[in-house]
């Protein structure tokens, strides 16, 4: 195995570090996606509201 | 010769929403123009731009040929907004004294005395404004707005909040100001009061100018005429 060539000291914490880094980015992406979906819905609603007032 | 107020293709945005659109209007010197329109039509926004309280995004605004935010221009503007703009914890005299200094006037007490006299507050000039009645507040606000004998008066809905005594004082002050050559822009949705003093009329709707011109005797007889004219 190639991995065996690597120093195993502190390996778990390295793993945690990488995990944490990508987790933060991932959480942000998820929140971004949810906000995007919410905005899309809101835009739809407001458009309907405006077109019902100005036919 | 410049017109006193010259607005040329003015646009004002809140975000992407245009509150004032492509608005062009000029008011000649010593005219009194009534700005008429529904709530939310853009009257207040327009007046705030003229009073130098708001920026605008496109177009030009000139007061006696100068932009409204320029300091020398603001010296010639008298502004009366929704709020009355006096300090509760100062006396009437201190209020006027403070605003006179801010306006860059030579603060002699005769000026302040006479302006208190004009609105009938001379006898209570040493009283904290907090103890004033509503009407007295309003008259003090009038004295404040007319203190530096402005060449242009911008009045936003002045009749809605005033009581009878204050309306009488305002009408008198406005007549005096017109005699002295001041230009007045007054926004209102109380047509009758405005039309009696106005020489010109401008109708604003959805931020656009719908009509502007001299006030005719027909309008005075039938104030709603303007709105009907617009429908045609």
């Amino acid at each position: 195995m190639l991995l065996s060539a690597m120093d195993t000291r502190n390996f778990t914490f390295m793993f945690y570090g990488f995990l944490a880094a990508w987790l933060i980015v991932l959480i942000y992406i998820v929140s971004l996606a949810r906000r995007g979906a919410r905005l899309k819905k809101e835009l739809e609603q407001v458009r309907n509201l405006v077109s019902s007032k100005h036919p | 010769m410049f017109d006193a107020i010259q607005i040329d293709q003015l646009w004002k945005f809140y975000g992407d929403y245009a509150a004032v659109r492509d608005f062009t209007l000029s008011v000649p010197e010593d005219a009194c123009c009534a700005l008429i329109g529904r709530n939310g039509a853009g009257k207040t926004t327009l007046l705030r731009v003229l009073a130098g309280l708001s920026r605008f995004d496109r177009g030009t605004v000139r007061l006696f040929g100068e932009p409204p935010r320029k300091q020398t221009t603001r010296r010639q503007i008298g502004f009366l907004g929704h709020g009355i703009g006096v300090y509760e914890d100062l006396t009437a005299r201190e209020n006027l004294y403070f605003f006179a200094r801010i306006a860059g006037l030579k603060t002699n007490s005769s000026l302040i005395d006479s302006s208190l006299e004009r609105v009938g507050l001379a006898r209570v000039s040493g009283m904290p404004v907090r103890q004033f009645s509503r009407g007295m507040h309003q008259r003090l606000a009038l004295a404040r707005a007319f203190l530096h004998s402005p060449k242009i008066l911008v009045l936003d809905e002045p009749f809605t909040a005033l009581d009878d005594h204050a309306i009488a004082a305002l009408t008198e002050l406005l007549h005096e100001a017109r005699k002295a050559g001041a230009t007045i822009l007054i926004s209102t949705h109380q047509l009758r009061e405005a039309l009696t003093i106005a020489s010109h009329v401008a109708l604003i709707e959805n931020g656009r100018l719908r009509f502007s011109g001299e006030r005719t005797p027909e309008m005075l007889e039938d104030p709603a005429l303007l709105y009907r004219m617009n429908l045609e």
Partner: protein
Amino acid sequence: MRERLVIALAAIAALLLAYNLYHIFLVLPDEAAQGAIYRIIFFHVPAAITAFTGFFVTLVLSIMYLISGNLRYDSLAASVTEVGVVFACVNLVTGMIWARIIWGIWWTWDARLTSMLVCVLIYSGYLMLRRAIDEPTQRARLSAALSIFGFADVILVWKSIQWFRTQHPSPVLSIRTGGGNIDPAMEHMLYLNFLAILMIAAALVLVRTRQETMAREIDSLRRLANAA
């Protein structure tokens, strides 16, 4: 057009990242003193540089907004700040995990840690201020002013905390040290990963800016509905 750009950016970033990860884990040798964990640096340092780049770009965009009054600059500034704060957090968290092993503690009030934390606080304040203002033009103006104050302060914070206390490893990049501190292969990898993270950040900024534009459209339609 914008969506394609986002997808392209993300795809290139993913490829580059895969290449980088392969090299970071399997090709680069271990660092003598620290063992495997030193590899965190390949994300730690690029995240910090990305964040600071973002804050600087926000400064420029804010000034441009105040000069031109064009709300696009404002949307972009908001997005860049937000993504910058995310990567500043990545930087802090990875740094804390590294410190737990190497220094034995999660946190120390060292100059760089404290400065980065203050940065996160200042720009979180910026993001909170934006949420507290409804009117887009006012929001743009006030947050632009805040970001100018914030950036000026970041420089002072940096200087003052550096005098105050320092414990952090000194700079490793050869631009700052004149070389010799770091294996060239490792430094090369730092730059490559910086590029990858920068591209991810750019893709996120593009997505976020689109949302800002949408939010403005919603706001203007609301105003239209209320006015009529």
